[in-house]
């Protein structure tokens, strides 16, 4: 057992998966000698050598596009983009090829690849380094979109992503990279299925649904509801954005009758809108109040001096949860 943070947990998983399957290779800018800008791939070049870990030229399109070609030709590439704000140059390789190749060729060619992308605010970074655009990927057919919220789940979901027969976009909440440590049993190969949400706090009166870097604030808001108001909130960690586990969400809201969705991405056409629509379709008659969203606003992410106004906080979640309970 070891107490690992998310960076160490992801590093451990990459190492385990590379040892397990020689088809798994890593590529990206600065992932080799430098060990990645967040040090997630530290030591892997030394461990697995230059035929498994590749520092590439600076070109997101070519990093993802060549990963698609490698996946078609029998490898299991895991590529890293440095920040989600630079993923757009590579987006079309996912949209035009990775998400389509299985369908386009009626299963003759498939794209088992993982694109690892640090995302989200809260690290006092320059423009383009703090945004959350998971909707782009979740909106794209043929891609799976996963966002872990802690070291254990990051390990279990990344192992599933590497083994998945289809392309997985794996967003890593960089605000939580080193914020949380969890006990990880290195001797067990724990995997968690892609496509399943998890109830991380049992409750009866309201359901709070969040993912990624929003989990700590959401759990704190649930604690506040209990301490201040005596309200027992259920909290769901979505974990997989697409394909979405609507059963777990619906089962919870059927019971509580109230739901608040929390994400740091902009509200318009965001994941919250999708969750809200699905809940209305499935448990309309169980709802006691409108489903509310606590999200980033539909503006460019403010620079870091004012990003706290933009990012959902435990207080914002608490306020909206109270309004939902009082409705």
């Amino acid at each position, binding site marked *: 057992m070891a107490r690992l943070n998310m960076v160490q947990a992801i590093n451990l998983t990459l190492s385990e998966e590379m040892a397990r399957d020689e088809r798994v*290779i890593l590529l990206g800018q600065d992932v080799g000698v430098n060990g990645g800008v967040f040090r997630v791939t530290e030591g892997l070049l030394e461990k697995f050598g230059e*035929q498994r870990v*590749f520092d*590439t*030229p600076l*070109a997101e*399109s*070519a990093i993802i*596009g*060549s*990963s*698609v*070609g*490698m*996946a*078609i*030709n*029998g*490898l299991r*590439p895991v590529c890293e983009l440095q920040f989600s704000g630079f993923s757009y140059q590579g987006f*079309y*390789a996912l949209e*035009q*090829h990775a998400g389509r*190749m*299985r*369908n*386009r*060729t*009626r*299963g*003759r*060619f*498939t794209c088992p690849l993982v694109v690892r992308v640090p995302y989200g605010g809260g690290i006092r970074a320059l423009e383009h380094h703090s945004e959350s655009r998971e909707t782009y990927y979740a909106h794209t*057919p*043929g891609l*799976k979109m996963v966002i872990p919220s802690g070291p254990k789940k990051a390990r279990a979901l990344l192992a599933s992503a590497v083994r*998945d*027969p*289809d392309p997985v976009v794996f967003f890593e909440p960089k605000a939580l990279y080193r914020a949380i440590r969890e006990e990880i049993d290195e001797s067990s190969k724990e995997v968690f299925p892609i*496509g399943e949400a998890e109830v991380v706090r049992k409750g009866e009166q309201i359901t709070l649904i969040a993912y990624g870097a929003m989990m700590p604030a959401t759990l704190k808001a649930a604690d506040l509801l209990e301490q201040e108001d005596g309200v027992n909130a259920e909290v769901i960690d979505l974990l997989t954005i697409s*394909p*979405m*586990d*609507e*059963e777990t969400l619906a089962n919870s809201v059927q019971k509580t009758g109230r739901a608040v969705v929390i994400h740091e991405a902009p509200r318009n056409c965001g994941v919250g809108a999708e969750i809200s629509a699905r809940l209305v379709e499935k448990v309309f008659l169980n709802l006691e109040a409108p489903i509310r969203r606590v999200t980033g606003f539909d503006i460019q992410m403010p620079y870091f001096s004012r990003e706290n106004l933009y990012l959902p906080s435990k207080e914002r979640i608490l306020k909206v949860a109270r309004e939902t309970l009082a409705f």
Partner: protein
Amino acid sequence: MPKRKVALNTKLEFVSILDESGRVDSKLDPAIPDEDLLKLYRTMLLAREFDERMVRLQRQGRLGTLVPCRGQEAAALGSCYALKSSDWVAPYIRELAGCLWRGWQLEQFLMFYSGHEEGMKIPDAVNDLPLCIPVATQTILAVGLAWAAKIKREDSVVLCFFGDGATSEGDFHEAANFASVFKLPVVFACHNNLYALSIPVSRQTNSKTIAQKAVAYDMACSQVDGNDILATYSVTREAVERARSGGGPTLIEAITYRLTYHTTADDPSRYRTTEEESEWERKDPILRFHKYLGHKGLIDDSRRDQWLEEISSEVQQAVDNAESFSQKNTLDIFDYTFDQIPPSLRKQREELAEFMEFAKSFERGKA
């Protein structure tokens, strides 16, 4: 600190072996066996006949918008002839003759252009990517294929086709750069047919040649008469040998001309003169190959006509096969998005199935 000259690796030759009148430069003749010459010729005839038939079918409303290939047969076919079957091709979309040589079925194109995904289910024995509609993106996929081959220590080579317009896209340059940095076994074959839809190559690039763009990446390059199958084969063979022996990528620029529309929705009279078109008709790759084979005593008009008759019924058979294809399971549109259909997608599949039942009863109700 004087200025000094920086040495650049530049060697660029234009290669032409077979001219318009069918005369061959015997020093450069790649000495293709007679049997293969005839097979190549028959493949060109088949591609031409099939292409023209598909355009007629489109005009009759029996196929959707399609991309005809007339005039570019030698460029694609000569290059594909230089490959082993275990090699890869990453096509653009105008390489019909090359695809047929590789083992693609006529029915695939008919299915594809009548809107059936089944058309791009590449036969298992053929190592080719499907046709690639987003311009230049296949160059990066080709890099990935070649990179995987190198990592797996296989000796396969990837031949990637694209047009002159693709060389303006960032992907082409990223692909060239990656291939060169990692010394990957890729042959980039640009079919410069002088127009990207309506845009002449002079508006596409200010470079004198497309081949010279390889110089920036320290990559071998050559320019070739794309309507000369002996030349396209020769330069590709050299590039394939270089790639297979670890010498890295090559950029080939084959100068050719599309003796047809960009797509069946295009009207070339808006941007090309009939004089120019007639001049290129005289450079038709099939005419000159026929003359060459005639001079060698391998073919005559009557044998060609006999082949054309055979080809015509071969094409008719393919049309019949494709048109008799029935969509037995239309709900399978859901089945190739992921390996395992997720629950929420399964529900959408059921929703469509229910709607189809509703539509049937609705129609019956009206009747």
